[in-house]
């Protein structure tokens, strides 16, 4: 029994950053995200003990977190955007390679708040693909949605972040 849980922890603890960031996309309070992470690991461990072991840990545990997050936060009131991101006009960045340093120097809080202004589906797609490094096919399986939908959510989410934060980046660049 002891070996069982040690083997589980060895296999899964490396995925905690992914699970935590995914949980944060459901829960805006850090404590709630931590609870969701713990719940995810316990559910994963139960499956592990029942010999339902994955070939790849990350997509498996991310899917467990997604399912728990969905059921826990299904009825949550969604935060309305003050301005529709889809409709807002934005001037495209002048360069194909905006300064990474400018992005890095941005206020972290502004980044997190911008993420929260995206619809849930876009936020989750971005977390799986851009933060966790899933392919869009893997994200589609985890999100139980067609790959085309993931591509659309991914692009709209990225575009939304660009629209919301582009002015902030220019401000940093001009300092």
């Amino acid at each position, binding site marked *: *029994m*002891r070996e*069982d*849980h040690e083997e*589980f*922890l060895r296999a899964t*603890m490396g995925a*905690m*950053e992914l699970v*935590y*960031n995914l949980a*944060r996309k459901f829960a805006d309070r*850090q404590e709630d995200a*931590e609870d969701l*992470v*713990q719940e995810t*690991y*316990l559910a994963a*461990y*139960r499956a592990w*003990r*029942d010999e339902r072991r994955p070939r790849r840990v990350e997509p498996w545990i991310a899917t467990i977190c997604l399912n728990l997050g969905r059921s826990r936060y299904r009825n949550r009131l969604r935060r309305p955007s003050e301005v529709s991101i889809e409709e807002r006009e*934005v001037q*495209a*960045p002048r*360069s*194909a*390679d*905006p300064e*990474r340093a400018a*992005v*890095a120097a*941005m206020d972290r809080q502004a*980044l*997190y708040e*911008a*993420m929260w202004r995206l619809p849930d589906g876009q936020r989750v797609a*971005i*977390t799986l*693909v*851009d*933060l966790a490094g899933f*392919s*869009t096919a893997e994200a589609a399986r985890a999100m139980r949605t067609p790959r*085309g939908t993931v*591509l*659309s959510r*991914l*692009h*709209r*989410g*990225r*575009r*939304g*972040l*660009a*629209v919301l*934060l*582009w002015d902030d*980046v220019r401000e940093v660049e001009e300092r």
Partner: protein
Amino acid sequence: MKLWLRMRRHDPERNSAEYVSGELSARARRWFEHHLLDCEDCWREVLLGRFGRRVAEDAHEPVPLGLRDRVRAAVLLSSTDPPSGAVG
């Protein structure tokens, strides 16, 4: 249908998402990069998508101190429970 053939359908959103995610085959990428030279809509979507991706990568939060220990302890505690399939 081959991806690069499907991309000939003008869909700036989907094409940009695949391009920025690095999921195009070499042939599809060459075709799309050639197309970008002439298509303002796709070029604009690629720039926004690329910038958004960079921002998203930066919006990564570190695991709070103590969470790993808390999870380890919770798993350890539950390891003494009977497996869910056990009859008890």
